[in-house]
Structures are given as structure tokens and as C-alpha cells.
């Protein structure tokens, strides 16, 4: 692989032992991906923060790096941590778990990580054509498919190494030839966030190869629907990008350059298999996977009327503003800031069943949180929360 003089200096250990190690990993992975060189990135996003997900191995890896004085060399945001502020019928997570979680948070903060959100595009919207080193599948899909930026779908620890050296392998979606569609997906009857989420989830089930790039028609332009669609596609698939008609920058040119080999239609009956119409049973309503934008949080505030009469949890970052967080809390909503209940063992709090409008949450909640999950529209969740 071709390395610049500065990259060679990093690799030779001229900066520090940790920069050398990080560079060694980035170069090694790059060579395996067939990259001919590295590319400088302007923003790294690190996944793998919840102690429930990374466990002792991840905690040790991250703490070891931080204790060596390692610093991120580019603007770096990080994923949310487990929901340490969550409480259900007086039960909270154990002190030991909370302490370990905060050790991860503190180590990442010491290295220069910020934001604690799975929606880094709310913190700094990537520009078209910009090179990024992002992990977190929903964020990667948003960056490539909506912002027109360029990033591989990095694993959590790879993004950590890339944040240190400020470089990523020039491979995958960093190269224009890997951004053209190879299959057509027609969506029918997507009319709200939950049906968009179901459609994304179904698309990933069918098209799960890491190099597939679907061309999507029939997705409404509402930002919220697009984010829920992509997040669900990220959970059931492994692709870093979709070209969405009317949304992805230069979608016409990308389609013209593409070679469509497969076609998939996702219709009303497919979607109905995932989205429920009525709330059967639920201990908690969950909204915020991916983390809410300020606009979405304001809409929820508006829709709540007199306030929540049932257990409604929304999750987001500080980007929604202290005023909105405070107003939601006054309405009886539990606002989890910088946190994510989907990556938290909710069964430890005695929760058995939840409702959500996120297909990604639907996929992970039974496995990671140990609860039953039902996919239903945000409108229904809010109606349920109001006590109707």
C-alpha cells in the first residue's frame, strides 16, 4: 500500500506507540480490503460504547488505549451508552454495571470523544463527497445514502483506530465505482415511520451482502421515515449504502451508471407482517432509535398534549436542546440523554414488553434487552402514552 511520508512516520512509531499500533491495524485492514492507499477523514464516529455490548473485553481495550494517553486526531463522536438513568417501578441498573459503563464513557471522553449519540449527523452534518470513518450502521447508511458523504461500514474498534490516525482505507464506498446500485427495490404503501422501518428491515433480509447497493423507489421524503428505514436496513443487512430515489445526491446519475440485476417488491402484506395496528401489551413505549432530532422531539412534545400517563421513554443527545429535554420531562416523559435502552438489559428492571416504531429496535430488543417488542407507529405509541 502507498503511504505518505507522514503516514510512514506514524507507522514507524515516531508519534507514539499507540499511534503506531493504530496505524498498523488500519494499514493491515486496508490491505485486506484491497486499498491502494489511505484517505484523510474529517470526522470519525465510534460505536461499541454500551457495557452490555462490549463487556469486559471492550472495556479493557478502550481503557488501555486511554491510559496510554491516546488522543483522537480528528473530530470524533461516539455512540450512546447503556440507559443508566432508566428506572421502572423503582428498579434501576446495579451500581457495579453503572460504574463499569462510566469507565467506558470516561475513557472515550479522555481520548476526545464527544456527543454520545447514534445520530452523529445531528451533531455535524457531513458534506457531499467528504470522507468519513464512521461505525454505527444507521449513521453509515445515512452518511452515504442521504448526505452523499463517503464511509466504509466500519467496525467499532476500527473507527477507534481511524479516529487516532485520522485516516481510513480508500476502499468500499470511498470509491465512486462502489456506490452504484445493483438491485432495484420498489416499496409500496409506506405511509409512516413504522412501515418505513418494516420495509427497510425486509430489504435487509433479502439483500444482506456487504457489497449490495439497492436502488430504492417509493420511500416518502420525510427525514424521520428515511432514518427509520435505513436503521432497520442496517440491522438486518450489512450494506453500507442505498441509493434512494429523490433523496440520495446524484441518484439519477448513479442509477444510469448502475447495473440492475435483481428486483424486489415490498408490498402491503409484507409490511403488515411486522407492523401491528393495536397495542396488545406494553410496559414501556420507546421512541428514539435512531436518536431523535430536535424537530422530532418538538413534534412529540406537541403531540403529547396534557402529558404522558404511561411509561414513555424517548432517547436522544444533547443536540435537541436543554429546553426541549426539560419540557418533555415536565410532561412526564423519561428522556434518556446520551443513552440507549435498546443496548441495555431491560429485563433487569423487570420490563417484559415494549412498543417501538423502530425496526432496528425490534430486531435487537429481544436479543439484547431481553424483552418482547412490538413494532407500531409513533402516532399509536403517543396515543397509548396519553392514556387513550
Amino acid at each position: 500500500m502507498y503511504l505518505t511520508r507522514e503516514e510512514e512516520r506514524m507507522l514507524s512509531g515516531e508519534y507514539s506507540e499507540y499511534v503506531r499500533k493504530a496505524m498498523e491495524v488500519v494499514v493491515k485492514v486496508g490491505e485486506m480490503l484491497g486499498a491502494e492507499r489511505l484517505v484523510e477523514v474529517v470526522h470519525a464516529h465510534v460505536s461499541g460504547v454500551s457495557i452490555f455490548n462490549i463487556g469486559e473485553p471492550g472495556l479493557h481495550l478502550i481503557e488501555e488505549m486511554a491510559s496510554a494517553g491516546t488522543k483522537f486526531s480528528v473530530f470524533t463522536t461516539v455512540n450512546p451508552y447503556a440507559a443508566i438513568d432508566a428506572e421502572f417501578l423503582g428498579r434501576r441498573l446495579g451500581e457495579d454495571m453503572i460504574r463499569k459503563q462510566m469507565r467506558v464513557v470516561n475513557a472515550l471522553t479522555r481520548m476526545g470523544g464527544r456527543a454520545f449519540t447514534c445520530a452523529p449527523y445531528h451533531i455535524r452534518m457531513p458534506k457531499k463527497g467528504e470522507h468519513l470513518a464512521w461505525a454505527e450502521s444507521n449513521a453509515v447508511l445515512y452518511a452515504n445514502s442521504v448526505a452523499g458523504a463517503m464511509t466504509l461500514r466500519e467496525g467499532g474498534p476500527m473507527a477507534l483506530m481511524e479516529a487516532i490516525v485520522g485516516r481510513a482505507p480508500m476502499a468500499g464506498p470511498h470509491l465512486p465505482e462502489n456506490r452504484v446500485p445493483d438491485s432495484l427495490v420498489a416499496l409500496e404503501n409506506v405511509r409512516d415511520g413504522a412501515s418505513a422501518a418494516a420495509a427497510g428491515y425486509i430489504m435487509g433480509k433479502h439483500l444482506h451482502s456487504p457489497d449490495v447497493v439497492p436502488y430504492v423507489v417509493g420511500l416518502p421524503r420525510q427525514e424521520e421515515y428515511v432514518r427509520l428505514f435505513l436503521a432497520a436496513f442496517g440491522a438486518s443487512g450489512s450494506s453500507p449504502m442505498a441509493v434512494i430515489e429523490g433523496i440520495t445526491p446524484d441518484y439519477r446519475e448513479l442509477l444510469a451508471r448502475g447495473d440492475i440485476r435483481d428486483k424486489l417488491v415490498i408490498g402491503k402484506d409484507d409490511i403488515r407482517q411486522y407492523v401491528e395496528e393495536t397495542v396488545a401489551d406494553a410496559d414501556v413505549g420507546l421512541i428514539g432509535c435512531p436518536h431523535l432530532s430536535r424537530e422530532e422531539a418538538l413534534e412529540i412534545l406537541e403531540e403529547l398534549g396534557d402529558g404522558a400517563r404511561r411509561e414513555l421513554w424517548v432517547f436522544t443527545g444533547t443536540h435537541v436542546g436543554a429546553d426541549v429535554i426539560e419540557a418533555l420531562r415536565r410532561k412526564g416523559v423519561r428522556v434518556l440523554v446520551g443513552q440507549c435502552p435498546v443496548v441495555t438489559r431491560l429485563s433487569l428492571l423487570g420490563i417484559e414488553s415494549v412498543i417501538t416504531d423502530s425496526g432496528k429496535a425490534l430486531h435487537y430488543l429481544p436479543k439484547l434487552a431481553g424483552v418482547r417488542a412490538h413494532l407500531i407507529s409513533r402516532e399509536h405509541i403517543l396515543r397509548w402514552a396519553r392514556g387513550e
Partner: protein
Amino acid sequence: MDKAVARLKRVVGGRDRVCGELVVAEEPISFLGDAVPEKGLIRGLGDVAGKIVMYPTAIGSTVSSYKIYGLSYYRKAPAAFVARKVDPVTLIGCVLSGIPLYEIKELIELPDLRGLSGRRACIIDDLLVLVD
């Protein structure tokens, strides 16, 4: 008699010979959610420690790399992963943990790998060979 069943490309790992019992997954693996590193388990596949795990591809979370790393941290690592399609998330997990990772280039005389679970195999250079 030894029988070669697939030609592989070595992606991670430096050893010339890797042997173990085969575990073949029909569906893509979601390491986050399905892997239990401290027990050396992948839900749906069972115990994978010391075995050769074959699967179509990995899906889902970018946090999966930590689950793969965890398998080796707890000394429950598979002998090797053999994927139809290697993805970057699994790749970094294998680089950090040192678990050998291969990609299937070609199947030899065997259209269906499913019946191979439980057989003993070795990866010798770029060939997957049944040895039982």
C-alpha cells in the same frame, strides 16, 4: 480419504494448517445479539470454540467486532471463520483477535455445505479438506 470441498482465500491469519469440527450456518450471523463470548457460543449454532465456523456473511451491528474479539479474550475462539462474503466489521474483529478468517472462492464437487456440520476438516493452504 481426504476430500477437498472448497477453495478459499486467506484474509486474516498466518498459519498454513487449521483444523477443527465444522459448524455450518445457513443464515447470516448477527454476532451482536447471537454471540455469547464468555461461553464460546453463537446462538443457533451452539459451541464454536476450537471449531471451523462457515457462514454466508455477517449482518447487523458494527459492534459485532467486539463480540469476535471477546471470543478470543475469553479463550473460546473458533479455529477459523469461513465466510461466503467477508465484511469489514468481521475483518477488524479477526485482526484484533487473531482468529483466522477465510473467504470461499469456489466450491468443489459439493453444491450444498449444510450437511457438513459435525464433520472434521482442515484448511490446508487454500483448500478446505474433509479429513474424517
